[in-house]
């Protein structure tokens, strides 16, 4: 992993709008507080948390992680293609990213359905309160992220992004990576670690 592969002459620059980065910080703060609340509560209910956690579907969790990571990678490739004015590949990458996001949502719905079928809800116990709260809070972010990707795809199709302007594209991409980042911590924390 070597660093500095970009143009060395280019000054440091934040990709995407400053406003989205302020927003991302606020979002990460919310996730961070939620994670901390989970971890602190678990520390005093280790047995109950471990038992309840064993019932989670780690397969779907892992598949969802793969989907989000791959989605993020596709978005990176889409941005790179757009910067090089290769519009068709950019759209293709963005389309696959969108499918990854939708796939995440579908998998999550199946996962929830299985939980509801067992009669588990937010009121079942503290672990499931956190499990549903955290994953649902994240789920809503994926929904928003998917909407953003759809808009980016639509605008790519209209030729809005290219070497002349990728500001909007980078802004939306940054948000999607944040959704990915939050899940990367969420998955081991809630599904696996014991």
């Amino acid at each position, binding site marked *: 992993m070597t660093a500095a592969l970009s143009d060395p002459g280019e000054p440091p620059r934040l990709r995407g*709008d*400053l*406003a989205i980065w*302020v*927003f991302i910080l*606020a979002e990460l*703060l*919310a996730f961070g*507080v*939620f994670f901390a*609340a989970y971890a602190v509560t678990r520390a005093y209910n280790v047995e109950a948390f471990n038992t309840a956690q064993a019932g989670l579907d780690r397969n779907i969790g892992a598949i969802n992680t793969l989907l989000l990571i791959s989605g993020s990678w596709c978005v990176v490739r889409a941005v790179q293609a757009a910067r090089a004015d290769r519009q068709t590949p950019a759209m293709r990458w963005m389309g696959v990213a969108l499918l990854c996001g939708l796939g995440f949502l579908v998998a999550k719905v199946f996962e929830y359905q299985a939980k509801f079928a067992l009669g588990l809800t*937010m*009121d079942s116990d503290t672990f499931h*309160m*956190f499990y549903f*709260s955290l994953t649902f809070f994240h789920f809503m972010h994926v929904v928003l992220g998917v909407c953003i990707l759809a808009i980016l795809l639509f605008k790519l199709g209209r030729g809005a992004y290219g070497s002349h302007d990728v500001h909007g594209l980078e802004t939306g991409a940054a948000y999607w990576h944040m959704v990915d980042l939050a899940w990367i911590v969420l998955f081991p924390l809630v599904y696996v670690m014991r």
Partner: protein
Amino acid sequence: MKYTSQAVAKPYFIAAMGLFVAQVLFGLIMGLQYVIGDFLFPHIPFNVARMVHTNALIVWLLMGFMGSAYYLVPEEAETELHSPKLALILFWVFLIAAALTVIGYLAVPYATLARITGNDLLPTMGREFLEQPTITKIGIVIVALGFLYNISMTFLKGKKTAITSVLLLGLWGLAIFFLFSFYNPHNLVRDKFYWWWVVHLWVEGVWELILGALLAFVLIKVTGVDREVIEKWLYVIVTLALVTGMIGTGHHYFWIGAPEFWHWWGSIFSALEPVPFFAMTLFAFNMVNRRRREHPNRAATLWALGTGVMAFLGAGVWGFMHTLAPVNYYTHGTQITAAHGHMAFYGAYVMVVITMISYAMPLMRGRAANSNKAQVVEMWGFWLMTVSMVFITLFLTAAGILQVWLQRVSETPMSFMATQDQIALFYWMREVSGVIFLIGLVVYLISFFVKGEEQAA
């Protein structure tokens, strides 16, 4: 002032200031009743003084919002107001309804008022802050609908900016959430839900949109910073405010019989509610530092900066202090709540309305800014009111901490009234601060009449 119809804001602002004085006077009466229980008994009992104090605040803030919208929307839309005549008619309807309601509160016992206003037909009375007789509530809805019609038509025919869009969203939300006050389920838990959906979703939801839009408007005017920059901040702030504010409603579900997960959702999201206020403070100072012009109205700039700081302190910090469920378990409904309420309402909503008045009034009176002498007097008003409000808040906080300690934490808890006797000293100090606040308000009002060299508009 670019459009003559903007002038309809003037009577709204004047009436708002009149009601502000009434609000503060009744606040002082109540403050004294905390320590001299039978003061003015039986003419003005405590519950009546409290009703007038809170309702006058709400009504004058609504008047301030309406006046501000009547001033702001035509200027942003770059067109005359749809119907200035309707705006004036609605003003008088609103003012007379408000006056009659206050007279009703003062003249007859509350139960009698409920009977003669036909509360039995559609019971809506008796809930804190929403004590108004049903007919007054219906009047408020009619005024609000007429107002929204007028503003929306102006918006639709003119230029649509981010500021007017956010403002309209806030104003429509204000009207829509008020409708929950007409529904009074018998189940006490459900009743509380609907009540909070008015009270909380107003002050920690849609009102914040109004606040953000008004502040952004004044900052564009006094700093000359690019509209795009200010609008971007506005979008970030209102998004954060709406998300944290709406889910943060959960901090009212802690002890009313709602599911337990609200302890977590309410704590976490309301703990984040200071974030948009912090962003707002940064925003105000940032824009003023990057200003591209020296606007002659320095008083308006001062009010705008004050709004950012005091809203963050009052709504953000003082709200956070008792918003976590384990803390709120002890502090719920004590003087800590009163401390938060005072500084939050003053810092966020009172100050933003005055910011707007401070900016718009001179323009409506045909000058860019008041004379230097008048502005100095106005700034004295600012400091007197703001500093005394800080002290009111600090004394109430001290009273609240002592109250929690003696009444709830202690091994040998005292009764409510015995505790009240112990914290009387803080109530006295609060009352003195309140008198200084009134002096500040009078000084502020005097500044409207100070003459001197004026700059042309």
